[in-house]
């Protein structure tokens, strides 16, 4: 399966999962489906047969509300049965709306409150340095969560400690919970912010797999890497794209049917 094919499947899964569970954040999952597909389908050294193997790469979804997409990626990669995705957000399930590691093979870390993932990723990366391990740590953040001061504490630390085994990817879809990022707390000049904190910065189209792969493979010796991935919130379902509404709205009825039709025809 190519990473593009994997991304297409992830989009189908997350629309079905958020429909069945009547849950939110479908657009947040759709916007990062390509990032997750490239990480799980290409970039990361992980093994579904041995989820806790020594020196594996670590992944933390800091924007935990998009957990459906990570569960889908793990299922597609064989960490658990795809059928289990149907239990997402249901009573008695292990697949909670915000990503949880409890009983879910392949999930390294539970999140849900924003601004937690990067500091923990920094700790994993620092430990790998101390141990001389080749393990790399990947953290996916939302743009809205870059409002959190804890991230900037971690950003300072990572550069100071030259954690070049740490990669942050920002799903920069320009929309947060109530309004656009620009109208909430503007991040621009965003690239400049990371550069001034001494990170190696790559700016890409977050739906272009070749660009994502190239950025993830860039040489950033002595510096942590951030990939600023420009994305479209709700990508792949035309009426969800670039809409604040679909941060919380769940695809039901005709809207669900239309979304599925579009995703299977594309």
């Amino acid at each position, binding site marked *: 399966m190519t990473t593009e094919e994997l991304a297409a499947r992830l989009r189908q899964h997350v629309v079905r999962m958020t429909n069945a569970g009547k849950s939110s954040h479908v657009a947040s999952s759709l916007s990062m489906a390509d990032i997750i597909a490239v990480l799980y389908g290409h970039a990361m050294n992980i093994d579904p047969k041995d989820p806790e193997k020594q020196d594996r790469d670590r992944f933390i979804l800091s924007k935990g509300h998009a957990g459906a997409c990570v569960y889908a990626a793990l299922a597609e990669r064989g960490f658990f049965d795809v059928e289990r995705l149907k239990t997402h957000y249901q009573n008695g399930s292990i697949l909670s709306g915000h990503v949880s590691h409890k009983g879910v093979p392949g999930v390294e870390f539970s999140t849900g*409150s924003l601004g937690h993932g990067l500091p*923990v990723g920094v700790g994993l990366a620092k430990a790998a340095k101390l141990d001389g391990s080749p393990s790399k740590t990947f953290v996916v953040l939302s743009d809205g969560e870059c409002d959190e001061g804890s991230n900037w504490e971690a950003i300072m*630390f990572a550069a100071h400690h030259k954690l070049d085994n740490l990669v942050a990817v920002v799903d920069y879809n320009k929309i947060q919970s109530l309004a656009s990022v620009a109208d909430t707390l503007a991040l621009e000049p965003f690239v400049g912010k990371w550069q001034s904190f001494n990170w190696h910065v790559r700016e890409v189209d977050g739906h272009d797999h070749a660009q994502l792969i190239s950025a993830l493979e860039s040489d950033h010796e002595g510096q942590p890497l951030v990939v600023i991935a420009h994305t479209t919130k709700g990508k792949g379902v035309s009426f969800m794209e670039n809409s604040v509404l679909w941060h919380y709205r769940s695809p039901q009825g005709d809207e669900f049917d239309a979304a599925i039709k579009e995703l299977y025809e594309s």
Partner: protein
Amino acid sequence: MRDAFIARLTEHAKADRDIVLVTGDLGFGVLTDFAKNYPEQFINAGVAEQNMTGLATGLALAGKTVFTYSIANFPILRCLEQIRNDAAYHDANVNVVAIGGGFSYGALGMSHHATEDLAIMRALPQVTVLSPGCLWETEEITSALPKIPGACYFRLDKSHAGRTGREGEKLEIGKARQLREGSDVTLLTTGGILGEAIACADSLASKGVTCDLFSYHTISPFDEQSMLSSLEKTGCLVTLEEHVLTGGLGSIAAEVCLDASVYPKKSKRLGITGGYCSKVGDQNYLRGVYGLTAADVEASILQTLKG
């Protein structure tokens, strides 16, 4: 207690290279030797407690035994959610060490009064809460911490009751230590104020009033049995803590009584009341302000027994 902790931790760090000490830019002159001798095991996270605690969790999840270190409320309140969601929920071996329990930093002002910490930290599931009363308890707990599963909170006090460990005694996490035996009063205490409690119990004994005196060095999990067994004998419960009355040792004792349907004939909870402290003074002075000196406690106990 701080120096006893660091000295003991340094011994363990030498033997166990997976021990990592992370400070929030505090410990001038105290952590210097540790940093010099074990640079690979020492991280100054800067004045950034949220990242310090997340970082500690990441290190722990990768196999390290981590100690975060700061003063008063800084390593817990600023980053409480990191302790809850990151360290505790993930059962990470993160040991949060706060020096300056209670009014240890009295004259520095309200920001430095760690007087609600026990209540807050004991509310977190899967966090072991430790509050030693003497140097010996401090050292024993320090040695035990790396082996306690999951997250721990370790409250260190400037004051202490010397070394109360007896020849051959072993400290057991989760088991209160009985330091005096008596028949009239069950006196529970936690933290460095143990020194006041011992002085009070000895003075009362000279007047014919005897106390079962317990040092509750472990607040969570709580040793219910020691307290209840003693109460059966004395029927009088007194708790003493340098902490607000809400949610601390006295509250726990009340909860234990209610859950066990044990109703002491007489009882008194001694601690900090009346809102935030804006009075300026050292630990002893502020104990006097709140009626927590040995003499104050003695008077309270006599009054309680009379009432």
